[in-house]
């Protein structure tokens, strides 16, 4: 199983186009959005600047996109080519396959996060009160992205061929909007807000927000994410074994 993990990581690194795109575009998008923003003016209702807020948003957003879209499409393609059929004839258990896929996703998301941070610090002079916040943020966003990598693997098994991209996009946009990543959720009715608290993207964003304000992440958000990781990874492993469709 370790060989498979190693091999999945190696081949992801070898795929230069995929790496280049996944690693660099969140940083590019960051410059586009926060490039002209003031470095000192505070965003209303917070004591943080826009470049800092956007840095965390873009790092999270980039990490989710890379692992969710990247994994689901690559897996759907592998199924189409018949590699997964061949792999299912080995003694490898379903969880081994899922672990390897998630590990290879993590390899992509880590540099994409770091690049956004480096660009923000260098170009927009983003600083934190304490150095631990950088480390904690990197780790939190990276660890959180693993939850969505597992979701990507599950989607790769659920959908085939042409359907993968639209399905991934719908889930992705749905999760982002519901998680309150796009519009402030404070204006929503309270029962909607109650639901939103349980959306994985909301918990994911909350991790970063807690750390950028100098607090530790809430236990509730961490538990929610761990819960989703178990669900998504379990679903992915189950779908891998159950997959009796040819494609």
């Amino acid at each position, binding site marked *: *199983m370790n*060989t498979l993990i190693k091999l999945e990581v190696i081949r992801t690194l070898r795929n230069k186009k995929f790496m280049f795109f996944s690693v660099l575009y969140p940083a590019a998008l960051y410059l586009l959005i926060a490039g002209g923003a003031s470095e000192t003016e505070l965003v209303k209702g917070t004591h943080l600047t826009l470049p800092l807020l956007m840095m965390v948003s873009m790092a999270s957003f980039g990490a989710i996109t890379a692992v969710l879209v990247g994994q689901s499409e690559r897996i759907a393609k592998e199924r189409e080519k*018949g*590699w*997964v059929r*061949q792999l299912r004839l*080995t*003694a490898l258990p379903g969880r081994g396959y899922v672990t390897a896929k998630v590990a290879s996703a993590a390899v992509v998301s880590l540099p994409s996060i770091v690049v956004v941070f480096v660009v923000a610090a260098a170009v927009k002079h983003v600083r934190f009160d304490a150095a631990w916040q950088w480390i904690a943020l990197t780790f939190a966003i990276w660890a959180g992205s693993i939850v969505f990598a597992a979701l990507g693997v599950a989607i790769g098994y659920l959908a085939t061929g042409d359907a993968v991209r639209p399905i991934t996009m719908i889930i992705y946009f749905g999760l982002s909007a519901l998680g309150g990543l796009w519009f402030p959720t404070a204006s929503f009715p309270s029962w909607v807000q109650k639901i939103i608290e349980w959306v994985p993207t909301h918990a994911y964003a909350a991790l970063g927000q807690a750390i950028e304000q100098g607090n530790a992440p809430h236990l509730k958000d961490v538990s929610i994410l761990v819960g989703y990781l178990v669900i998504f990874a379990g679903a992915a492993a189950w779908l891998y074994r159950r997959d009796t469709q040819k494609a």
Partner: protein
Amino acid sequence: MTTTASTFTGEGRRTGAPVVSFEHVSKSYGAVKAVADLDLQLYPGETVALLGPNGAGKSSTLDLLLGLRAPDAGRVELFGTTPQRAIEQGKIGAVLQSGGLMEEVKVRELVKLACDLHPRAYPVEQVLEQAGLTEIADRMVNKLSGGQEQRVRFALATAGANELIVLDEPTTGMDVTARQTFWTTMRDQARQGRAILFATHYLEEADAIADRVIVLHRGRVLADGSAAEIKARAGARRIVFDLDGHIGEGALRELPFLAALEISGRTVRIQSHDADATVHALYGLGLYPRNLEVAGLGLEQAFIAITDAATAEEAAR
């Protein structure tokens, strides 16, 4: 192929518990009945060829056997358990007709993966060597030729000691040497008591290697026996002779037990269900056939005779 006739005898086979067991297994894709009420047992040490025209259900049968598809009805068992369990125990090696390979990796890396995943693996270098991959071990998998890819599949299927090897058209695209090494390896495996099941369109492979031949047609078993039995079962023998002077085709058509007649120049080729009676009648016509040859059908002709007969029978219904 220059392989000699099979050295396997039927002695001692079909002993012990079956390796593979199909019980009334059916599988349809919409209106297409790919596998129809299939009953089949394979035993340890058997080398079985699965023959059948395109679309006969060979790949579907192998998919069901390997648990890659679930049957609509009936039961498939490997080693007395489910296909999945048997696979997890590392008892089965398989080459699929539609099996892709992992991309962006080197041949050696992929073969090493297969070895690492196998509970009773052979050394990587040995597997590479056996599959004729040593020289191209450092190439990228997605840059290989069709025959080279097929060798990689073969390597994946023989990465460790399996008890059953399943091959779907394994030698398609391989050159002569690769084919020969392939079958030499398979013979070795069979000698060690492993069961081998392979689907093929190369009938000479089936004739030379298999000690049991199963002919599938529209998801049903048409014939099941040794190659010799299949040839005999086709019922016909081949009679070839030359005739001098005028050849009365009408008279020849009237010969008893005639299954097929073909005249080209001076040469007459006949398939007969009772060669003795046909030849006897031939002389009875006052003809003097020269260079007379009477022989059994080759497996290929027998195969065509059997499947044609089945198609005709179905059309008549």
